[in-house]
C-alpha cells in the first residue's frame, strides 16, 4: 500500500473552523449558577474525583473533543484521502492506460482541477513504483490504436517518466486491442505475468477484453458524471424554399447522458469569428437525443470556411461539446466542358440544370484556364494527362492510357449487356434499347471498375481515386442513340450530383478523429503541408492525386495546403462524434474467459488499489456528532439509593 494521497486538498481549509470552534467553546461557558450553603464539600468531592479519575477533566471537555474530532474528520474526508496501488504481484506487468476521449473528463464537474487521465497516470505510476524486486513492466496506451509507451523496463523512474508523457487522444479508444497487445507481449515471457488495466470504463467497444488467461485487474478511475455531447454533425447547402436564397444547414445531434435535465445552447460560429451565425436553446432531458438544425445564409467569402458548433455551457467532458464542419461551396455547381466538337450532347444535357455554372473551353485551353478546384470537368474527344477540378468525366478518349485505363481498339455495334445499377452514376436509369454504333474498348483492370459492359468489352469505366470520381465513357454519345433516351440525361445529371456531393464534403469528406484522412490534391502534387490544432505545420508526401494524412487525434479544423503544380488548399473538419465516448458513466469492463465471480473479484481488488477513505471519515464524523449530541442531551444516571437523611 502506498502513502496517503489527498485528491482534493482544498477540503483541509475546513480545519480553519477549529479556531472559531475553540474560541466559541471558551466563550461559551454558560454554566448554570446554583447557590449552595457551602462549596466546601463539593470542592473536596471534586478533588477526590480528580484523584480517582485523572481523565475526568478531559471527560468534562468531551463535547469539545468530539466536535474537534468531527471537524477534523470532516475536513480530511472532504480532502478525499486515498491510498493507491496495493501489492503488485508478478514478474512481468503490463500496464494498459485508456487514453480515449472520455479520459479527458474532469473529476468533480467542469471546474474540476484534475482529469481522469491525471488519475490514471497516478495509478499507473504507483503501479510502477510497486513493482517487486526484479519485476519489469511495459506500458501500453489504448487510443484509437494500441501503442507501446514504454517497453519492458525494471526502472520505475523511467516507467514513470514515460507514463507522464501520455496524453488523452480525442478518439474512440480500442482498449481491447491494447489489452490483446499486452497479453501478446507477456505471453512469450516466463514467470508470473499480470495485466493492470486503468480505465474509466466508458468504452467505445463492448466486446470483452481478451487477456489470454493472464491474471488481470481493472482499476477504475473517475466517478459518474453528467454529460451531454454532439454525437453527429452534418453540413449541407441548398436553396431556401421561401426566399430562394442559398442557405447552409448544419444538422447536429445532441445526446444527453445525464440524470438531470438542463438547459443548453447550441451555437454555430464561422472559424475565426466570435459572433455566432445561428444558435438554438435546448432543454436536454435525461437520456434525450435531440436533433438541431442551424441555418444561415452564407456570404460568397464564406464558402469553404470552417464551422464550429458549440454546446454550452460546457460539462465534464469538453471534447464532445464542440464539433466542426466546412461551409460547402455555392449551391450552383461549377462544370467545365472541354470539347473541340461543334456540338456536344453532354453540354445540352447539362444546360437543362439551372443550378449549374457551365464553362465551355477547348481541350487545349483546359490546361491554361483557371478552373474551380471543386468543379466537375468534362472532356470530350480527348484525355489530357492532367485534368483540373474535382470530379472528371471523359468521353470518347483517344487510344492509349487515360486516367489509368487502357483505351484500346474500336469495336463496332457492341451490345450493352449489363451495367452497375448500384453505382450512383447509373442510379434510376436503364440502358435497355440503347444502341452504340462504335466504341473504343476500355480495359478496366487494376483499380478501375467496369460500369457498363458489352459482351466483349467495357463501354463505361470507373477510374476514381479516393476523394475524386472519374468516369470514362468509351464512345461518343453522338455515335449512339443514347442522347435520345432519358437515361442519358439521367446519367449526366447523376454525374453532376455525385460531383456536388463531393464538393460538399470537401477534399477529404467527413473525418473522425483517430482515422487517417485522404485528401484529394492535384495529380502533380508531391507534398502537402498539414496544420491543425495542437500541431506544428508538417510536410506530408502526396502521390497520384492523394495525400494520406496521419490519424488526426484531436477534433478540430485542419488546413492542408500545397504549392505545386499550383497553389491550393483544403479544409478538413475532424470530429469525435461518438455516443459511447460521450457516455462517461462507468460501465462494467467485461473480460473474456473470466467467470462473473473472478471478474467481480478483480474489480474489488482494483477498487482496493484505489481506496478512498472519505466515506469512513464521514462516518467517523457522524459518529462523533452523534456522541456529542448524546453527551450534551444525556440524562443523569439514576441515583444510588442512599441519598443521605
Amino acid at each position, binding site marked *: 500500500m502506498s502513502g496517503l494521497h489527498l485528491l482534493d486538498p482544498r477540503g483541509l481549509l475546513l480545519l480553519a473552523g477549529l479556531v472559531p470552534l475553540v474560541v466559541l467553546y471558551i466563550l461559551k461557558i454558560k454554566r*448554570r*449558577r*446554583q447557590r*449552595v*450553603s*457551602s462549596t466546601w*464539600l463539593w470542592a473536596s468531592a471534586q478533588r477526590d474525583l480528580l484523584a480517582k479519575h485523572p481523565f*475526568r477533566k478531559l471527560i*468534562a471537555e468531551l463535547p469539545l473533543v468530539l466536535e474537534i474530532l468531527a471537524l477534523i474528520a470532516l475536513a480530511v474526508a472532504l480532502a478525499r484521502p486515498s491510498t493507491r496501488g496495493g501489492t503488485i504481484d508478478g514478474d512481468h506487468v503490463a500496464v494498459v492506460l485508456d487514453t480515449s476521449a472520455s479520459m479527458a473528463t474532469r473529476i468533480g464537474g467542469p471546474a474540476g482541477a484534475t482529469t481522469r487521465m491525471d488519475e490514471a497516470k497516478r495509478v499507473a505510476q504507483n503501479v510502477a513504483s510497486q513493482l517487486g524486486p526484479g519485476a519489469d513492466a511495459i506500458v501500453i496506451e489504448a487510443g484509437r490504436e494500441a501503442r507501446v509507451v514504454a517497453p519492458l523496463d525494471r526502472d520505475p523512474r523511467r516507467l514513470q517518466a514515460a507514463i507522464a508523457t501520455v496524453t488523452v487522444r480525442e478518439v474512440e479508444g480500442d482498449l481491447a486491442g491494447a489489452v490483446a497487445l499486452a497479453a501478446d507481449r507477456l505471453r512469450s515471457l516466463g514467470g508470473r505475468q499480470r495485466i493492470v488495466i486503468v480505465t474509466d470504463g466508458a468504452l467505445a467497444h463492448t466486446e470483452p477484453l481478451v487477456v489470454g488467461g493472464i491474471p488481470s485487474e481493472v482499476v477504475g478511475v473517475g466517478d459518474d458524471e453528467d454529460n451531454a455531447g454532439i454525437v453527429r454533425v452534418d453540413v449541407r447547402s441548398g436553396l431556401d424554399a421561401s426566399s430562394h436564397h442559398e442557405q447552409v444547414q448544419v444538422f447536429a445531434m445532441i445526446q444527453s447522458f445525464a440524470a438531470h435535465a438542463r438547459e443548453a445552447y447550441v451555437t454555430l460560429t464561422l472559424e475565426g469569428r466570435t459572433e455566432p451565425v445561428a444558435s438554438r436553446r435546448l432543454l436536454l432531458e435525461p437520456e434525450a437525443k435531440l436533433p438541431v438544425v442551424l441555418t444561415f445564409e452564407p456570404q460568397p467569402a464564406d464558402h469553404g470556411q470552417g464551422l464550429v458548433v458549440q454546446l454550452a455551457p460546457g460539462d465534464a467532458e469538453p471534447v464532445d461539446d464542440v464539433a466542426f464542419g466546412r461551409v460547402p461551396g455555392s449551391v450552383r455547381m461549377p462544370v467545365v466542358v472541354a470539347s473541340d466538337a461543334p456540338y456536344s450532347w453532354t453540354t445540352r444535357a447539362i444546360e437543362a440544370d439551372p443550378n449549374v455554372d457551365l464553362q465551355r473551353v477547348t481541350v487545349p485551353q483546359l490546361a491554361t484556364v483557371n478552373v474551380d478546384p471543386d468543379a466537375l470537368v468534362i472532356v470530350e474527344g480527348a484525355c489530357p494527362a492532367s485534368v483540373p477540378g474535382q470530379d472528371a468525366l471523359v468521353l470518347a478518349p483517344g487510344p492509349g492510357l487515360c486516367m489509368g485505363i487502357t483505351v484500346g481498339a474500336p469495336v463496332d455495334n457492341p451490345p450493352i449487356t449489363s451495367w452497375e445499377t448500384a453505382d450512383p452514376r447509373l442510379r434510376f436509369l436503364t440502358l435497355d434499347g440503347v444502341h452504340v454504333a462504335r466504341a473504343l474498348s476500355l480495359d478496366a483492370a487494376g483499380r478501375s471498375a467496369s460500369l457498363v459492359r458489352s459482351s466483349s468489352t467495357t463501354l463505361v469505366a470507373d477510374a476514381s481515386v479516393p476523394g475524386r470520381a472519374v468516369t470514362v465513357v468509351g464512345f461518343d454519345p453522338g455515335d449512339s442513340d443514347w442522347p435520345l433516351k432519358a437515361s442519358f440525361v439521367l446519367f449526366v445529371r447523376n454525374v453532376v450530383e455525385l460531383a456536388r456531393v463531393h464538393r460538399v464534403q470537401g477534399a477529404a469528406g467527413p473525418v473522425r478523429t483517430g482515422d487517417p484522412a485522404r485528401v484529394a490534391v492535384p495529380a502533380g502534387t508531391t507534398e502537402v503541408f498539414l496544420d491543425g490544432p495542437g500541431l506544428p505545420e508538417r510536410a506530408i508526401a502526396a502521390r497520384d492525386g492523394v495525400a494520406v494524412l496521419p490519424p488526426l487525434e484531436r477534433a478540430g479544423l485542419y488546413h492542408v495546403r500545397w504549392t505545386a503544380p499550383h497553389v491550393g488548399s483544403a479544409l478538413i473538419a475532424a470530429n469525435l462524434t461518438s455516443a459511447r465516448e460521450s457516455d462517461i458513466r462507468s460501465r462494467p469492463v467485461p473480460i473474456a474467459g473470466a467467470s462473473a465471480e473472478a471478474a467481480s473479484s478483480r474489480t474489488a481488488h482494483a477498487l482496493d488499489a484505489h481506496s478512498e477513505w472519505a466515506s469512513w471519515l464521514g462516518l467517523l464524523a457522524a459518529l462523533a456528532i452523534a456522541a456529542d449530541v448524546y453527551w450534551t442531551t444525556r440524562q443523569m444516571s439514576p441515583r444510588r439509593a442512599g441519598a443521605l*437523611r
Partner: protein
Amino acid sequence: MTLLDPAFVHELEALRRRLRVKARSGTGGEHVASRRGSSAEFLEHRPYTPGDDLRRMDWPAFARTGEPVLKLFRAEEDVVVRLVVDASASLDAGDPPKMEVARRVAAAIGYLALASSERAQVLAASDGLVRMREPMRGRAALAKLLRELDSIVPARGTDLASAVDGVVLRSPRPGMLVVVSDFLDAGPFEAALGRAASSGHDLALVQVLAPEELDPPWEGDLALEDAETGALLEVTVDARAVEAYLARLQELFARLRATAKRHGATYVRLGTGDSLPDAVRRFVARTID
C-alpha cells in the same frame, strides 16, 4: 411562623422533666446536683466536726442517740443553657430556610431550660461570636428569648471554632453548650468543642441541613456559588460527582459523631423537612445520631 406553637409547647412540657444536664452553673435551680447542697432533699447524716454550721445539726437525732450529727441535703443548682446559634449566611439556604429550623430548635431547648427554672442564654455565631446576651431565667423570660432568636439574621461566614472558644472564654461557669449549626465549616471546630468539654461544658450538637444538602437534586454543568463567600466552583454534577459529595458528607457526620462520643455529648441531626418534636425528643434523650 411562630417559633413555638401551642401543640409543640404541650409536647415540650412533657419533655422538660426528662432533660438531664451534666454541668452545674452555681445558683439554685430545679436540677439536683450530685454534690451536697441546701435543697430540701435529704441526702445523708455526717458526724459533727468542729467548725460545722450548727444550724445544720440534727437535733432530734442528737436527742435520740446522744451523738452530734449533721443533716446533709442534696444541693440544687441551676444550669445556664447556652444556645449558640450559627448565624452564618449558609443557614439561609433551604425551604424553609435552615435558620428558621435552627431558631425553632433553639427556642424549644430554651423553653425546656426556662420551664425547668434554669437560665438560658442566646449567642449568635458566624465568623466568630457575634452576639452574646445575658442569661435569662423563668418562664417570663420566654418572650425575650424568642425575640432574641428572631433577631438573628444569617450573614457572613462561619468560624465555629472561634465562636465556641469565645463562649468558653466569656462563660464564668460551665453549663450546657448547645451548638445549633449546619457544621459546614472547613475549620477545626472539633478541637474547640474539645476545649469546651474540658472546661466542664455539657455539649450538645444539633446539625440542621437542607434536603438539597442531603440529596443534591442538580445535574449537568453548574457553577456552584458559595452562600457565604460568593466564590464560584465549576462542577459537572453527575452520578459520580454526587457520590463523591455524599461520601464527603458522610465523613462530616462521622467526625461529628466521633466528637460527640469522645466528649459525652449529644448529636442530633435533622433536615429542614423533618419532624421537630422528634428531634427534640432525641435531644432530651441525649442520643448520638
